[in-house]
């Protein structure tokens, strides 16, 4: 019966979305923890409650409702999948060979658009250049974005592997969501104001362009190897336990998991290394596909990860998995990489945790198998995959905020000098 009510109400909401209704932007479905707002509370009686599910209340809210909840200090989240209302539509890419997926020029344009649209909240930085001279962009999202504040820092990386097009979209959409919803979603505002979130959606721009224009299933970067083959696997080129054995990576240039001639031999991985070295991240996610699994260190050997930060890292993985599944039931397994999947050495997460102590995750996005599409995701799946990962990303950021301990000395610091792409000088683009 409840389900019928939900569908009927959703249908009514949808039906009311005639183009000239003039009120569609006011109504939004939100959810909040049910324990924060008992049904008998006076504030609850004023609200249009759709249902309660899994400990959360789903409410059709007006701006006044949301302001009331804000005033009461009750956190809520927007639920576009339940509303039938047009979500603050993340801009699709400009079409082209890769459809709604972003190519390098499209991503570059969109990052600069976000920076221009949200001054003070978004800043584009250039972390380095690829082999073929393309910029590796990082988008910083925070209030007072021009300052390095004493706030928790979190990093989301995408597209180490060229054919994993969805791994560009998810971090980019996370960035867009944070910026677009900061003024209407108290939870997002809290995340943005109390953290410095960095989004690097495209670590391997050369490989992506080759994957789009020449061979869809390309994985590596575009290094011309001495034997005439091309490419180094960027996710085997990081320095921690690089080249430990030939099970977790390959010394053969023609291999899909070729580790390169030396740790950080590739400018793309070196750019990430140099960038991370300048900051103090409390969490790191590197998006990949496919497999629907959350992996954490160690990948280089089948030895249990222990020590400082290990327990928190494992707990976060379990928490993210649960939140991923809560969206639409998509099960993301989780576990230590070497036990859950296969051995890898020289990968991003082992290096982030081993060298910097950062709880780091490889999230292999949907689907599960090549029978369901493998590295191909239908364009219609971009947003659902993003939304199911959004909650996990917010959860990670919030945990980083919770554990963050400011340095002993107070005060704000001006931005450390680095290669900013925004404003006046636009070198290297």
């Amino acid at each position, binding site marked *: 019966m409840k389900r019928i009510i939900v569908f009927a109400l959703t249908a009514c909401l949808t039906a009311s979305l005639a183009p000239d209704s003039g009120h569609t932007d006011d109504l939004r479905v939100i959810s909040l923890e049910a324990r924060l707002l008992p049904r008998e509370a006076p504030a609850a009686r004023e609200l249009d409650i759709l249902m309660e599910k899994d400990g959360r209340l789903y409410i059709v809210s007006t701006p006044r409702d949301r302001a009331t909840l804000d005033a009461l200090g009750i956190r809520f989240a927007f639920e576009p999948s339940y509303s039938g209302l047009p979500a603050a539509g993340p801009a699709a890419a400009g079409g082209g060979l890769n459809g709604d997926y972003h190519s390098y020029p499209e991503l570059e344009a969109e990052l600069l658009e976000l920076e221009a649209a949200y001054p003070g909240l978004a800043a584009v930085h250039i972390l380095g250049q690829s082999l*073929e001279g393309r910029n590796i962009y990082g988008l910083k999202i925070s209030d007072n974005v021009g300052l390095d504040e004493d706030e928790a820092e979190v990093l989301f990386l995408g597209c180490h592997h060229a054919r994993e097009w969805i791994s560009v979209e998810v971090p980019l959409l996370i960035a867009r969501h944070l910026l677009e919803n900061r003024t209407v979603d108290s939870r997002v505002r809290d995340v943005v104001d109390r953290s410095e979130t960095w989004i690097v959606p495209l670590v391997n721009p050369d490989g992506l362009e080759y994957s789009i224009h020449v*061979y869809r299933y390309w994985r590596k970067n575009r290094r*011309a190897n001495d034997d005439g*083959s091309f490419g180094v696997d960027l996710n085997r080129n990081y320095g921690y336990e690089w080249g430990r054995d030939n099970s977790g990576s390959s010394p053969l240039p023609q291999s899909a998991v070729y580790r390169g001639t030396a740790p950080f031999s590739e400018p793309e991985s070196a750019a990430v290394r140099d960038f991370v070295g300048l900051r103090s991240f409390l969490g790191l996610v590197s998006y990949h596909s496919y497999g629907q699994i959350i992996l954490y260190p160690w990948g280089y050997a089948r030895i249990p990860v222990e020590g400082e930060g290990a327990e928190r890292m494992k707990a976060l993985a379990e928490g993210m998995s649960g939140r991923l599944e809560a969206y639409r039931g998509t099960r993301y397994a989780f576990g230590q990489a070497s036990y859950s999947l296969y051995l890898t050495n020289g990968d991003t997460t082992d290096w982030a945790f081993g060298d910097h102590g950062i709880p780091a995750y490889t999230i292999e996005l949907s689907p599960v198998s090549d*029978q*369901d599409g493998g590295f191909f995701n239908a*364009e219609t799946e971009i947003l659902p995959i993003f939304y199911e990962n959004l909650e996990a990303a917010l959860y990670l950021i919030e945990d980083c905020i919770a554990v963050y301990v400011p340095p002993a000395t107070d005060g704000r610091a001006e931005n450390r000098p680095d290669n900013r792409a925004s404003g006046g000088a636009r070198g290297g683009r």
Partner: protein
Amino acid sequence: MYLMKTKKTAALLGLCLLFALGLLLALFPSPARGQTVMGQYEEEAPLGTWNLFGASGASSLGRGAALFAPCAADASAIFTNPALAARLQGLTLSVGGGIHSASMFRYGPVNTGPISSADNLSATVFALDLAAVTWNVKGWVVGLGAALTEIYDRPYVEAGSAAYNALFTFSQEGFLRVWNISLGRELLPGLSLGLGFNLVSGRRTWEMNDSWNPPARAVIITDERSRELSGRFLNGGLLWRLSERVSLAAAFRTAFRLYGPSRSLLRYRAPAAGTDILIEAEGEDEIRRPGVVGVGVSWALRNNLKILGEAGWWNWSSYTATSFGEEQPRAFRDTWRAGAAVEYKSSIRLFGRDFLIPSSLGLIYDRQPMENPRSSYIGYTLGTGIHRKGFRLDMGSVFGFENGSGRRLVARRLAVTLTVRTRPRGSGE
């Protein structure tokens, strides 16, 4: 008289030295350079040399693949310099065909990533490649013609692994035709001018198929693209008979755009699982072909012995190309090409009739426009034929050896042109 003989001897000796130098250059290729770029064969590269200009019949081909030299032997002159056609009397009809062949090493997915070959691969096209008619009416010469001006075919590749039930295939083909209408006239004694209007149309298709797994779990990826091409440009030139034995010519072609709709279909199928994912794209593409200017000279040493020389310049630095709306990186430079040839005419008597047998030998130096790797073709041409009154059967060939990529690419063309004239042609060329 002695001085004239000395000059002629010097000219012949000079030609011999040039041939010898060319032979040396062709035999000793420059060292290979490492490259992460396609080199000679971008997707839109024509088969053989980039430096194309109109179309030429077998007689011009055999004489140093002449494009600018004043040596109009048949109606195909309208495609390069209509002023040369002004010397043709009566009605002249030429049809020709032949073989276009070139070797290549790096193109599409071949030797750029997924597919490698130890040796160069060749593409060969048989085509009826020109038909033209000129009609001299009271000194005005009107020309009409159609010719094959560019070929985009690539060697078909098929690679597989029985162990993985894997099969990969790639093919590309295409062409560009030119349709010409031109007008020429001898305006002053010894000075002719001509102008042509040209429409070009063609297409290019690309298909890649990748499949693996046993039939019960087969995965099939198809990448199909097609582009329609059209454009227009002017060509023209002058012919100046300095004396009975020496003529000068100059010709030009305006820069032009090849543009038209492009379509692609990227498809992923796993039939056993019912998975069928499509990414379709449409776009409008544009390729800018350069302007060309060139000059040529012919010197009749004797009535039956002539030498020719020419040089042309292509404005490739202005070159741009888009693919589904995205500009592609093309680092091209302005470039030039030069050629020289010698022709000797002898006569034979067959079946009680006198026939003229021309024999020609030519040399070309043809610098290619890519900045990296820098390369050039050195070509040798051979020509012969059989002429009697208003009938000509000409055969010409060119063999070009590439120098610079380290792969010793070869481009070949063999042409046959049949020309029929309603009246004997005027004296000299």
